[in-house]
């Protein structure tokens, strides 16, 4: 049977699960739901599942995608069976035939809630806006080959910035999903490296939507 795709959410206490934890949990949830996944051939068979764009530990998402292959047809009640078998915080939303390639995802829309224990002044908001809308934000970034440089400005777009609570700012960003991969948490690195006084006391990230190169929603 052809490749299927699951749209799911990861939130609440489940955000602390790592990518590998999530893969194990998904595998077990399918088994508990009695939905048989196709396994690889060979000496040590493993179920054929892959989660796109691994999420960092601590970040939420309402738009996670997982590709999988089933033995037999897709059960009509797959979503409800799966949800009954998943732990708190992981919720399956939709399952459908995987059409487009994961590679086509180019942008991720993310929300960042930045807390400033000292409160957010209008000046602070303007400073941050100005900083994140600059033409170039070059930061040092650790890569597999050591340290590299990345221009955040070329790979990120600030969509919204507003005060949500007296001590919390809400940002919406578009970040590049691939080539290069930009983690929204990098804005904190940018503050640390270039404007330490803007570093928030805490930041919570939530993925909101995936887009292709043309900024059309990717499913």
């Amino acid at each position, binding site marked *: 049977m052809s490749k299927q795709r699951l749209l799911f959410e990861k939130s609440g206490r489940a955000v602390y699960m790592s990518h590998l*934890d999530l893969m194990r949990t998904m595998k077990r949830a399918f*088994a508990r739901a*009695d939905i048989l996944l196709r*396994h690889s051939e060979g000496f040590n068979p493993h179920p054929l599942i892959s989660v796109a764009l691994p999420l960092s530990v601590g970040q939420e998402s309402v738009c996670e995608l997982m590709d999988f292959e089933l033995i037999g047809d897709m059960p009509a009640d797959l979503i409800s069976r799966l949800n009954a078998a998943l732990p708190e915080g992981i919720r399956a939303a939709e399952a459908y035939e995987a059409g487009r390639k994961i590679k086509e995802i180019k942008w991720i829309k993310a929300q960042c809630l930045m807390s400033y224990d000292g409160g957010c002044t209008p000046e602070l908001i303007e400073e941050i806006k100005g900083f994140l809308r600059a033409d170039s934000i070059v930061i040092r970034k650790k890569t597999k080959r050591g340290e590299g440089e990345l221009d955040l400005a070329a790979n990120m777009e600030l969509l919204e910035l507003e005060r949500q609570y007296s001590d919390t700012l809400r940002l919406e960003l578009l970040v590049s999903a691939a080539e290069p991969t930009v983690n929204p948490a990098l804005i904190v690195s940018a503050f640390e490296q270039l404007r330490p006084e803007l570093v928030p006391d805490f930041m919570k990230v939530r993925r909101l939507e995936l887009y292709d190169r043309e900024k059309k929603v990717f499913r």
Partner: protein
Amino acid sequence: MEQKLERILMKVQKPARYTGGEYNQVIKDKSKIDLRVAFCFPDVYEIGMSNLGMRILCGLLNQRDNIWCERVFAPWGDMEEEMRKAQLPLYALESGDPVAEFDVVAFTLGYEMAYTNVLNMLDLSGIPIHSAERKDCFPLVIAGGTCCYHPEPFASFVDICNLGEGEDVLPEIMELCIKAKNEGWDKARLLREAAGIEGVYVPGLYEPEYKPDGTMAAFRPVDGAPKKVTKRIVQNFRESYFPVDTVIPSTEIVHDRVVLELFRGCIRGCRFCQAGYVYRPVRPRSPEILAEQARQALKNSGYDEITLSSLSTSDYRPLNCLCDELLDYCDPRNISLSLPSLRADNFSIDLMERVQRVRRTGLTFAPEAGSQRLRDAINKNVREEDLLNSCRIAFEGGWNGLKLYFMLGLPTETDEDVIAIADLAYKVLNVWKKHAKNKSRGPRITVSTSFFVPKPLTPFQWEAQISMDEYRRRVALLREHLRSKSISYNWHDPETSFIEAALARGDRRMGAVLEEVWRRGARLDSWGEYFSYERWIEAFEACGVDPRFYANRERERDELFPWDFVDVGVRREYMWSEREASRRSQITPDCRKMCMGCGAARIYTGGDCDE
């Protein structure tokens, strides 16, 4: 989730172990609960969640509508530091509520090196560590588990100890607590009443007295507490509760699989093995019940691995028929079955081949001693020819890796016995050279030695542990005789085993040492990165307690032991006769060949031993 915790979790390693929220966790409505229990495992999540005993007891308590039992584990060092910094008290995973708010705080103690974690967890909860400092009934601090067969070293910290298996007695203790709560008893009354339950030991109701030479002169019950406390066992093990619908961790733990318990107890009587004596009598489950439990547990968990667990799995009579039935279920579902604890004398290659079709892991045998004389002395009834025969079958079957486990420092061990370990390893290597099916990759034979720790309630409870220097000398001697490139040798550092030996047969005076070493920073002592021998020695010195008195001293036949008030079924005279037999290198047949009348059957009113 509390904001404080949310911020901390981003700073620590593997935060998923601190959040709860796993599949199948038990959530109840606090307002409809009579008793809240914080079940504490004094080690990290990955270890505690792998513990079958904890799963059994939490599941058992949660079957009751009026009790809510939640899980608590020790935080790793980084998490502890952040929690203390943020003044976040230790909390239970399910509700997130602070442990200090619970009615009962229950610890399961499986190994001595976890004792400091108990103190640390109480302190992290904001609960005073000494029983005497806790004036109110609740939180009531109770303890159970293997270490409770000799609870004296931690007597001053816990209110109630549960001796033996918890399944039958724990609910009785909980009922008593509910009654105490409803009727507003004071703590003294609750403790007095608890002491009346069979299998319950209330340390505060006993007073030890010592002779000038440091040994015990007397151990007196006060306030009507019983002179002897008899351990509790599950009388109807066959049909007793087994968790088939248990919490499935969201993050990886040590034993991340279904564990099926075939039987309790052991027929063997190895003289060094505490579990072999204290878990008697032998009580098996039927293969029909086990197969059904396995199917249920696999179905409910989604695990792709199941393991059979018992003290000596290959002694389970219907093992072949059980494995066949399990494989019928597992094979079509890509579930693997594994068998630990194989004995070298009744090892079945046929069985191994059938169960390890998918992943061929290495084989491990534990002859424990190198010479036949010493194996007879410890009653490890494995003959060299049986071991070599099992090795031949394994090598012919295509295995090339083999691990051999031994102990150094066993009573009566001589240099000859030490060298015999090397001889045995070379004999195994020769068997490989002669019979290996596939010689292209060479053999991988690993010899490991640990440092023998004499344990209470075994025939070796009278014996001295050899000194650390003597152990190191024997390690060096063995190394000299293991020069083959095909044999690698690993040995345990003796420091932990020496401290363990002191704690294992310690008395109430050990409590001061535990407190002192914890105050000096000891915790997570079963982890190499946290254990500090120097810290322990400094604590012993500060308290004026000599660990050698407990570890390295041979006891007189009639010495009063601090654990003598515990009746585990097996009688002290029987242990002594076994100890004498060991001095003559005389073996005792296993329970199936002949019943030696050890005494364990006395307390088994629910059935016949090994039936």
